[in-house]
């Protein structure tokens, strides 16, 4: 199960040149600033833009190479645009049926009722697109896409047109999609919080090139290429709610290598969650520390030290169990603690953001 995508394309003032091997499952985020070519790459994958040289193999099936170009409507993909692009002349129900009705019975793997239920749009079916809010429109667009039973789901900043409140409402639907449907997703975004919440794999893009491509956690912990998801370097770890302390409103989440106390987000025990730990919130000690307000103190081991933005600072890559972690400390502190690869230390984690 994999996705091989190689595209070269030249526009005046912009060129795209990527050669990627992506997982054939889970969510791959194409992350980078505006104008870096994320959307262009996605459009090339869909066949909406035609690259001068391109090759796309989706789970063993060649959609495009030097000799063949399968037109968009013959590619079993789903595409969610920034704007929902619903058909204004059709009711929501007819919008949903548009792709479905063009699919052979045997090829229909997503039930109408299922898509409607998954996206929470049952009450909108008889309405027209013009009367819907941005978030509702985008949910309809996603359901409409799912109903074509795509073997690859391409999403181009589906939340870009929504305001912060709508985004908050919308993200859970995407998470459900991620959790319940086994469709590989390529998700274009420049929003760090969407990457942190949704991505399993990340491709970092800049000026038409892919700077890095790899599993989210490992890629975020790279020292040679500190990727700022927003304001600061940090990692995102997958975890499971293991315990809830109702008295102090805390939850213990277990990850591969230990567990952390975080603010209780209301998730039930056993629920998969993600935690985001920024490098600036991680301190390093040579021995476990007593009498300190910081509650999360875990044994770790130093992997490497790397440059940081300021000459006074360095980034330490550590691992706790099998999970990587980044810590920002001053060079003087690193020197004083004589931090070196392989050294066992304790990490003090001041803040953990629970996402999703």
């Amino acid at each position: 199960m994999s996705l091989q995508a190689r595209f070269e394309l030249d526009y005046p003032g912009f060129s795209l040149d990527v050669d990627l091997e992506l997982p054939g499952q889970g969510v791959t985020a194409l992350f980078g600033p505006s104008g870096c070519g994320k959307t262009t790459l996605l459009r090339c994958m869909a066949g909406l833009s035609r690259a001068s040289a391109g090759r796309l193999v989706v789970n063993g099936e060649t959609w495009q190479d030097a000799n063949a170009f399968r037109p968009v409507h013959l590619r079993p993909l789903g595409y969610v645009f920034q704007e929902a692009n619903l058909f204004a002349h059709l009711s929501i129900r007819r919008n949903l049926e548009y792709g479905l009705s063009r699919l052979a019975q045997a090829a229909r793997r997503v039930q109408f009722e299922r898509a409607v239920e998954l996206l929470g749009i049952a009450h909108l079916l008889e309405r027209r697109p013009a009367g819907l809010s941005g978030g509702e429109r985008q949910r309809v667009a996603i359901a409409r896409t799912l109903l074509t039973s795509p073997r690859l789901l391409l999403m181009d900043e589906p939340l870009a047109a929504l305001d912060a409140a709508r985004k908050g409402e919308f993200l859970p639907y995407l998470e459900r999609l991620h959790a319940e449907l086994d469709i590989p997703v390529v998700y274009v975004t420049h929003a760090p919080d969407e990457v942190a919440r949704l991505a399993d794999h990340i491709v970092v893009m800049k000026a038409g090139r892919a700077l890095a491509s790899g599993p989210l956690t490992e890629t975020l912990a790279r020292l040679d290429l500190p990727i700022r998801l927003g304001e600061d370097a940090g990692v995102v770890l997958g975890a499971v709610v293991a315990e809830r302390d109702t008295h102090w409103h805390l939850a213990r989440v277990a990850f591969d290598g230990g567990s952390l106390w975080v603010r209780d987000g209301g998730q039930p025990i056993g629920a998969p969650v993600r935690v985001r730990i920024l490098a600036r919130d991680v301190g390093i000690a040579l021995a476990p520390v007593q009498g300190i307000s910081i509650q999360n103190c875990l044994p770790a081991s130093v992997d490497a030290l790397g440059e940081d933005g300021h000459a006074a600072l360095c980034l330490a890559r550590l691992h706790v169990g099998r999970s990587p972690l980044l810590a920002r400390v001053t060079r003087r502190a690193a020197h004083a603690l004589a931090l070196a690869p392989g050294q066992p230390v304790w990490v003090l984690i001041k803040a953990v953001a629970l996402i999703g």
Partner: protein
Amino acid sequence: MQDSDLAAIALTARLAAVTTVVLLLLGTPLAWWLARSSSRLKGVVGALVTLPLVLPPAVLGFYLLVLLGPEGPGGRLTQALGLGLLPFTFGGLVLASVIYSLPFVVQPLQQAFAAIGSEALEAAATLRASPTDAFFSVALPLAAPGFLTAAVLGFAHTVGEFGVVLMMGGNIPGKTQVLSMAIYNHVEALDYASAHRLAGGMLAFSFAVLLLLYGRGWRRTP
């Protein structure tokens, strides 16, 4: 009302109806191409389509007459094809009217197609619709108001023409004499009462047509 007047009205209605149908059939692909193509020819074709809008109808009619006359290349062609000569026939009137009213049909259609943009069509493609399928299932319905405008303007403009049909048709009662020429004949004969009946009818018809078009526009604005 005189028989010749009734004949002129019937002929005009028939001419306008046939012309409108021909124009919609021809104008739709032309407008689609003008709205969507990035070809260099687009400017030239766009200018040619718009030419009848600025050209004096007499000029257009004169050249059509020359072109399609017995000595013109068009005339030789129609004769070779066994169609005979087009000037002073209903076929000739239709041809002249189609050219004369072309911009009135192509431009609203072109604007309607351009307004759809590429987004809806791209969405259709990703939902498994072939380009032809998407044209009929998405572009045509979304452009429907443009089609109404185009049909009404094309029809009304054909009803109102004079110079071109005078040149090409030659004012033959019952055969090529359309309404505007019947009015002209009445005025020439100083029969103002008959001229009034026809001219007043035309005035009312034109106003009703425009009311239909703009009235729709008003209703749609919230």
